[in-house]
């Protein structure tokens, strides 16, 4: 028997589905029912005429579990395709976050300075607060959030990951 690898890995799966009622519940129910992790999940219709949506799921598990997740997703009837972008196609992952940072004086200035380094946009500004928009790879957003925490971070809203492969060909 080939040796079993029991290290947990993080994988991003891109799932093309028919945009029909209940399809998201099927995907989420599959993860919940079989005990798989969801670290992030995003979904939106991407083709109006074909009525297909694209679900991007970030999950973690041993290689055996990851293989199962892909196979189990594949057997759902409305699922057309599952691509494990972490291993099958080199891809780009991006996430958007909105952060509310409140404070005055030194902290407020520092928050503004850090936001410029990260190329975040101030969407809303008052005398005692900012709302920043930041886009980037998930770890960049993690880092930005950590830096904002001592500077008066009061609220975060994240979109979850969207992913696409590099190069000219579609997935």
């Amino acid at each position: 028997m080939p040796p079993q690898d029991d290290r947990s890995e993080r994988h991003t799966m891109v799932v093309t589905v028919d945009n029909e009622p209940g399809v998201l519940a099927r995907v989420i129910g599959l993860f919940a029912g079989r005990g798989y992790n969801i670290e992030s999940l995003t979904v939106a219709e991407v083709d109006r005429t074909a009525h297909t949506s694209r679900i991007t799921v970030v999950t973690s598990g041993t290689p055996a579990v990851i293989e199962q997740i892909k196979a189990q997703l594949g057997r759902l009837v409305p699922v057309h395709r599952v691509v494990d972008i972490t291993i099958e196609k080199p891809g780009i992952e991006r996430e958007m976050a909105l952060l509310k940072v409140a404070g005055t004086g030194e902290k407020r200035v520092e928050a503004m300075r850090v936001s410029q380094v990260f190329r975040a946009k101030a969407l809303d500004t008052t005398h005692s607060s900012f709302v920043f928009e930041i886009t980037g790879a998930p770890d960049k957003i993690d880092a930005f959030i950590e830096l904002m925490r001592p500077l008066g971070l009061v609220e975060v809203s994240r979109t979850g990951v969207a992913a696409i492969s590099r190069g000219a060909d579609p997935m």
Partner: protein
Amino acid sequence: MDQKVATQAAATAELTGAEIVIRALKDHGVKHIFGYPGGAVLPIYDALFQNNELVHVLVRHEQGAVHAAEGYARSTGLPGVVLVTSGPGATNVVTGLTDALMDSVPLVVITGQVATHLIGNDAFQECDTVGITRPCTKHNWLVRDVKDLPRVMHEAFQIATTGRPGPVVVDIPKDVQFKRAVYLGPDKTPPRDYHPRVEPDEGAIRTAMHLMAAARRPVFYTGGGIVNSGPEASRLLRELVKLTGFPITSTLMGLGAYPASDPQWLGLIGMHGTYEANLSANRCDLMIALGSRFDDRVTGRVDAFSPGSKKIHLDIDPAQINKNIRIDLPIVADAAHALRRMIAVWKEEKLSADPELGSWWKQIGEWRARNSLSYRNSKKLIKPQYAIDRLYALTRGHDTYITTEVGQHQMWAAQRFKFEEPNHWMTSGGLGTMGYGLPAAVGVQMAHPGALVIDIAGEASVQMTMQELSTAVQYDLPIKIFILNNEYMGMVRQWQELLHGGRYSHSYSEALPDFVKLAEAYGAIGFRAEKPDELDDKIRAMISVSKPVLFDVRVDPHENCYPMIPSGAAHDEMILSDADEEPELTDEGKMMV
């Protein structure tokens, strides 16, 4: 009135939702449906009333309808169809749906729903049917617009019957059943974009055949996938097994695909499998899994399962590959398609089995000589094994279909009844649903009116769906319910004896009904046997009666079912009899079901 409705419909070429359902059933060749009416399906029942081609079987509980449809489907290869109302009607089908999902049984279950404008309002008899049944169906639909109904009905049959078969639910609100739409037949509706792979990869087939030709200790381990693929797969399996000369064992679900009377047959594999089947699985150097899924009842402790073998795994469902056991060579395909190619390649390349096969058979012969299914018979008490042996002997020559409940009786039946053909053995394997066998027998008998249909039952299980005896009486279905009455939930008692220090907590079947009187109360025939020498005559009488029979066979209450691989143990840690030393059970093992 009928005239007027008919002309109106013809003029507009539109049918009501209810009529669409009936019409679609007809177009998919449905002859029988199993159901139970209620407020939310009255329009469909009305359409049924006006149609005299479909035979509707009125059950006594919706769970019974689903198991009957399962029996129907598994004995014919056709999809089973069920019609029930919303709310409690729908929740009552959940056990049956889960059962069918686990055992890959094609079912189309139609549920009524409250009117679309009431959905979400906690209306009377409303429940979230698609939500509740999502995890226990292959797919399901809530049809909010009557225009979608013809397409959904066709998709329902397509999804239920193609790829790995399974149950589907079509939930139809009451207003949709009244509304009208144009009906297009299956030939005029584009099929759903759903294409499970049926043709095998040619390279994988060739590699598989070379592995087989090189194997010294090969074994076929086949399952329900062969039966589900259809009779052709069983025929091809027989050909391949003969061609190679390899030994073959099967899961509970696969019984009958290969004839049990054949010398290459090793018997059942798994927890209550034969010594030779399990030892062969444990010691083989090549395991050829065909339409089986390495269920935990088969593997026992996974890290000790067939440790020295390469494994070929043929399955139509890619998710089964590498799920429980690492596979060396996967083949994703329909069984018949793959078997046909396997046979062709073996012949084309003039392959032959390794000469070492002879010593492998010699070894198997030694394991066989242990006679692991033997038991000590008694003159005073009816041993359950003896009862099954007599039932088998006296039903030979009949066209016999066996269903079972769940427990020791089920395992004894699987071990001892010799199935020669597929689709003649109906049992709840994956879910292990007590109460399956009686309604399943109703469904089988409905499909095979002239056959001898026997539910091998336990006294506890049979009480779970006993009310379906009334259905059998109503439709003149002469099913035979052969109860191995040990006055215990025997399988529970056996586990309590082995794992819980003989503390028989709530496993005694107290206050049993008088089954003979019960049969009579239903208008069926009752028999009872208490001594071994009464058995033969009464079994013969049971067979010759053309009415439903409830046969109370009083058996030894303390008999255990062996061989047994306790949960969490390996195949070579089998208990063969009461006298055997029990292996030290790990806490981990006790934790397993």
